[in-house]
């Protein structure tokens, strides 16, 4: 049983919801700030973050990256494949999310 506090919902520009583990989301410094900030922002309270400027495929890739990064950090060295055509947008998202 996954508790609600252990997951975070990320919502793309198109309204797709990605429910991922909280610790995966914390890979992003921006998300980490949003979810742990001392003040009571809506994100902290609902455990839900809306990204009006990130499209669904990019957000999906980002989520994949979060999990891959966790694995990588625990010593499993695999390659993370990125399709060339989404590189730029992904780059911008990464900058935004500070990952």
């Amino acid at each position, binding site marked *: 049983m996954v508790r609600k506090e252990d997951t975070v919902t990320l919502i793309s520009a198109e309204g797709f919801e990605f429910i991922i583990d909280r610790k995966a989301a914390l890979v992003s410094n*921006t998300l980490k700030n*949003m979810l742990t*900030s001392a*003040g009571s*922002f*809506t*994100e902290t309270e609902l455990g839900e973050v809306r990204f009006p400027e990130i499209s669904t495929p990019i957000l999906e890739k980002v989520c994949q990256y979060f999990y891959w990064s966790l694995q990588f950090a625990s010593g499993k060295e695999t390659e993370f494949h990125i399709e060339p055509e989404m590189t730029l947008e992904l780059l911008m998202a990464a900058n935004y999310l*500070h990952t």
Partner: protein
Amino acid sequence: MSQPKKKPFKIEPFKHKVEMDPRYAEKTWKILEDAIHEIYNRNASGLSFEELYRNAYNMVLHKYGEKLYAGLETTMTQHLQEFSRVIEAAQGGLFLEELNGKWSEHNKALQMIRDILMYMDRTYVQNSSKTPVHELGLNLWRDTIVRCPTIKDRLRDTLLDLVHRERTGEVINRGLMRNITKMLMDLGVAVYEEEFEKPFLDAAADFYRIESQQFLESSDCADYLKKAERRLNEEMDRVTHYLFPRSEPKITSVVDREMIGHHMKLLVEMENSGLVSMLTDDKYDDLARMYSLFRRVTTGLQTIRDLMTSHLREVGKNLVVDPERLKDPVEFVQRLLDEKDKYDRIIRSSFSNDKTFQNALNSAFEYFINLNARSPEFISLFVDDKLRKGLKGVSEEDIETVLDKVMMLFRYLQEKDVFEKYYKQHLAKRLLSGRTISDDAERSLIVKLKTECGYQFTSKLEGMFTDMKTSRDTMQGFSSMMANCEQPGEAPTLSVQVLTTGSWPTQSGARCNLPTEILSVCDKFKTYYLSTHTGRRLTWQTNMGTADLKATFGNGARHELNVSTYQMCVLMLFNMADKVTYREIEQATDIPAADLKRCLQSLALVKGKNVLRKEPMSKDINEDDVFLFNDKFASKLYKVKISTVVAQKESEPEKQETRQKVEEDRKPQIEAAIVRIMKSRRVLDHNNIVSEVTKQLQARFLPNPAVIKKRIESLIEREFLERDKVDRKLYRYLA
């Protein structure tokens, strides 16, 4: 397997959406500004982090970073000015509360603002080298609140007032204090120092300057130290509760300086309660307190040490030169030992075994022990007393402790050779009269002396022990021979100790006519001894022997008298006559006058042991006296020991004589040292020779420079040395 061919990858310039609302920046900033207001109003729960972050992100991305930063600065300043007005308005005790409350609000808000402006912090701030948001917030707080003229002084005064109130015994809100000092520390070490620590230290200095003055007037030294210690602990306690650890050394040094450093001299010299009386009264706790407090000040220990040394010297000097004390050498040494024990104990229990104090103690002892030229003699007498009777029934370890203590005093002596001289005399007496209790103790002391001063020092002493042993063997051989070939009975039994000349302290010129009965036995021994040891010369040391006589008195009472050889010679005269004059005795025995008088004194004038009577009855022996056999002599004991009136302590002329001998003995030693030095140095000036000689001979005695000079002159006369022809101060060694 063929690899898929990689397509050449082309990066196209990113096409920005150029159609931007010209009022975009204004609008975005408005959103953020409102958010900041909301945050400061503690109303942030409706805000979306992502939205604010995205807006700030976009502003920075679209090169409006500067506008964002400046806006933030202005908005925050506004809020802080508002805070400052509120804080100023707070009355009395609420001031700090208000300040503290606003500080925590600001902190919270600052954190949130920093979070949403994180992107700006990451890029714009770094690229244009501005102060990061968090630090900016702290700086603004520092400048608008803490250093605001109306708050700055009030804050400092309030803090100092609280500390002062706590020092005078009030209870204050330590938690609040801690929060405020922490705030100052958060604003930077410099702020903490400037706004609080420095005035705090100044105030403490003033406070303790006045208080120490009051304490000095109202309490004695011990009390003062207790109060000072309590104050010191209070300050340390204060630091742990609401100051920063780095303040501890500073504040304690203020207390040290004001309470201890400035008054050290006054404290140690305080009448009836200062260091001296603490030492005299064995106030271990007070002394320990003084030590631990004074140690905190640079010259503190030195002050204690100096006064202790001078006090000790004073006490020791009185002890050593007091003519009353000189009457009993054993008591004299015992007092020295007691004094040493006392101070050892003080140093051990109160001065944490401080090496420098031990050294001071040693040097003080060395100083005053050598003030009295008779110390070496007395120490030897003390040992003599202990080894004769003092150690009866004492365990081996205790003997060792006593001996160790004596050795410690011995180490202080400068004139070790004088000690050796006396020790030799005393040891000789002990050995010859068979009075020594423990052979082990004797030997143990010799070993100690040997380790202290080397083989040379003790070789003669050891020679004495060897003589004793060989004598025992010789006597066995002699008596078995006597038993074999002589008619038993009438002849007196003879016991001889053969002593090597040189090893023993001999008094030359000791002569006396032995009674014929004795003489014949002596001759027999002489022939026996010389038959086994050819080429030797035997001389009788009649002044050192003893004899056991069987005497029958008037009422038929029989007693065995234990007497010296001289006394025996005198008493033997009374076998022939009941009445003999002094002159007759002197003529018949040929005993030196001084010895004879002493021996007659002990025979005729000691109550209970007067085997002779004297006419006329008087206290002194005169040359016209007549001596009679005391028929009425009675004693409860069968064996009567008649001790010669020996001057335990040396009389004045004897002392002179010993002194003379010592000086005589020193001459060759000094000469030998000079020759040794000159042989290696070839050329040396006078002062250097003197200092080198002193150094070489230090272990045995402290040579007098005048004597050294004389020795040098004598060596020049005998052409071992010559003066340099040009520089008259230089000496040359002539091989």
